[in-house]
């Protein structure tokens, strides 16, 4: 079975600073990896996904993530954050070729301060 660990529950940063949200996964089989964003009282929006191919994945809103198989990581990065990026971010994994039952991390609350 897969498991996903988000190492930071809260990350405060200043506007225009870079940010990295960390995600590690554990799985005995190949996985697909995802990052989602959740704004208050809303559903989850898919930011980006890694299915295969290039290990650097670019998503919406200027975010990107890099799949590192040797370190079993899929960290999310943005070079310069905006106030509007304040939200909760979830990393998720699912087994390749399965029914895509996502296993989620517990989330990282990103707060961007002026």
């Amino acid at each position, binding site marked *: 079975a897969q498991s996903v660990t988000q190492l930071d529950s809260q990350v405060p940063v200043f506007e225009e600073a870079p940010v990295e949200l960390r995600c590690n996964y554990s799985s005995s089989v190949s996985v697909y990896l*995802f990052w989602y964003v959740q704004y208050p*009282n809303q*559903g989850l929006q898919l930011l980006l996904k890694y299915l295969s191919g290039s290990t650097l994945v670019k998503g919406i809103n200027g975010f990107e993530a890099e799949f590192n198989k040797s370190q079993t990581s899929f960290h999310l990065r943005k070079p310069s954050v905006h106030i509007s990026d304040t939200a909760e971010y979830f990393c*998720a994994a699912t087994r390749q*070729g399965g*029914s*895509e*039952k996502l296993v989620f991390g517990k989330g990282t609350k990103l707060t961007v301060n002026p």
Partner: protein
Amino acid sequence: SQTIHQWPATLVQPVGSPLSLECTVEGTSNPNLYWYRQAAGRGLQLLFYSVGIGQISSEVPQNLSASRPQDRQFILSSKKLLLSDSGFYLCAWGNTGTGVYFGAGTRLSVL
């Protein structure tokens, strides 16, 4: 393009009352469908998933049930709500290799 509709957005129900939350998907056929719950301050927990009409798998034993009467319709139900059923319920759909996409969610308060 694909869209997912989930309603109602908010719901306040007394303990012991029944529940029915509905979710429909447009623009795709034979999707995998999911119900997740997000309790306050906690992550997302998969409750049910379905790979086809009438095929429901339950991930955790609980007071809830799910049904899929049509290809793109997924319903979450309860006969008698408990206080512990309060939370944010999210319906989602996916196809192999496409990712999983979520509805806007239903915030359920059981009082």
